[in-house]
């Protein structure tokens, strides 16, 4: 009976200062995942350290601590080493993509993104982790 009480769906943290985009990702991922949302970098780090998720959808342009800074913190923290990071950005020049990948992003998702790409990225990272 205890198994029914424990939610073992993959956990996803969505970090974006734009509420509609957070909602879009959450709705897209649907019931297969349990999602949490935060709107800035500091909140993201706090949430990550409190309970590390399987995957983070991380926007680059955030008020205060930026997405790339959050990414560096994640990769510098041994406790968060296994968290899959999908960097989401409207800036999508090659150098923007390079900066994200060089800093340890697992995947880069340009805005506007396709619904299936969000799902694919989430599944892939969860599958690799599990």
């Amino acid at each position: 009976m205890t198994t029914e009480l424990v939610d073992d769906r993959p956990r996803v943290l969505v970090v974006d200062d734009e509420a509609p985009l957070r909602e879009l990702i959450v709705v897209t991922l649907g019931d297969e995942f349990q999602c949490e949302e935060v709107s800035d970098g500091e909140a993201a780090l706090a949430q990550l350290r409190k309970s590390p998720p399987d995957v983070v959808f991380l926007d680059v342009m955030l008020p205060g601590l930026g997405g790339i800074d959050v990414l560096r913190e994640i990769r510098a923290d041994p406790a968060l080493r296994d968290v899959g990071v999908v960097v989401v950005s409207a800036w999508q020049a090659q150098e923007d993509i390079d900066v994200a990948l060089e800093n340890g992003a697992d995947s880069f998702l340009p805005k506007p993104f396709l619904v299936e790409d969000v799902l694919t990225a989430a599944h892939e990272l969860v599958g690799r982790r599990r």
Partner: protein
Amino acid sequence: MRRLSLVQRVGLLAAGVAALVGILFVAALLAILSLRKAETRESHSKDVTVATLQVKALSADLESALRGYVLSGNPRFLDLYAAARARVPGDVGNLHTLVHNDPPQRVRAENAAAELHAYVVDYAQNVIVIARISREVAAGQAASTDGKRRIDEINSTLQGLLAAENRRAKLASEHARDVANVAVGIGIAAIIISSALVGLFGAWVARGVARPVRRVAAAAADVAAGDLAVRLEPGGTAEVGALVTAFNSMTGSLEVSRHQLLDQNEQLREGERHKRDLISMVSHELRTPLAAVLGFTALLLERDFPPDEQRRYLEIIDSQARRLAGLAGDFLDVKLLAGGDLTLVRTPFDLVELVREQTELFFLQPASHRLSLDVPGQPLVVDGDRDRLSQVVGNLLSNAIKYSPEDGEVRVSVRSEGAEAVVAVSDDGIGISAEDAPRVFEKFFRAPDAASTVGGTGLGLAVAADIVASHEGTLEVSSTPGAGSTFVLTLPLVVVRAAVGAEQDAVTRS
């Protein structure tokens, strides 16, 4: 010492050579004149000698005719004597004429003439008279030394005249030779000095030209190699000085031009960078709402949602599409403002009502931020373009939301201050540094902090400021970085009389 110009140097050289040639010419002229004078003198001496010898021959003829007659008694000798005597005035006059300008010779000639006259009158005539009477007595008389003495005297006088004349001629020709020698010496010296002068002056002129020209050539090579800071030491002759000045001013103006070109280039590059930034910013600004519109549309098409969720997603699509339309509007406004084509449709309206409307729009529940609204109970009427002023207030509200943390408080107040309506919008956001504050109303300006974290075109406030300015209002900002910003909009109230009128109406009605 002032250096002479090249023209002055060449002029000096020409003058020196001309002076030497002049000296040469004068020396030659003097020599020629001296030679000619000597020649004249010589020919004159020859004439004098001839005339003297004639007189000498005459005296000999007189004596020999006289002796012949005395010894032979032949009257034919008397004819010869008479003929000789007839020649006396001519020959003596001839000699006298030739030497009358020469006092010592004239004295000698006169002495000879007097002695000849004395010989004829005092001696020869007497001897002839005696001979006619007695040839023996006459012969004795003639044989006496008197006649011989007289003739010798005449001859000696004439000999002295000849000797003096010869001396004269010799002296004159020697003088002429000396003068000619001196002239030749002077000529040779003048030629040598001229040559030396031409050589030295040539070297002087060349030195005045060649060295500076080499300097200028070296500097020009530096300029050609790209060093425009090259400057030549001023100095040299006037022409070289002018060349140096011209060269320096040329490199100077080249340097200035290059700086200007570099500046222009930098400006162009800046403009180009600006344009690139703008394009990437615009595309970024468009992508976020576009992502929401496309994403929710795809979800609605692919999946089945309960009606209330469908409605919610449609509302999101609607608001994001409006956001896109707003961006398009901003760009259009910028275009209109840039072209001066923004036309205002002005009507009196209640600013309080406008602010209420806008806050309701921006703080639709569930809102990301808390609103604190402080507005007066009665209307504040301003005369203006309601839509445009809605845009301004909306921009201030959206900025307050955009640049402050979620769940922050946005304070909006409306009040009247004298003849003005004042709308203030404050937030607890990231704020704006003091140096960036005046620039937030510039077109496309984004404060560096904001640009790196918050999307935006940098157009909203620029457009707002223009709209406010064309309503004779003001739009100002005060801010503490990290603590928040307050934007204050003032617009002239045109309502005072209308409000008073309304009150009066109310009074009348009651």
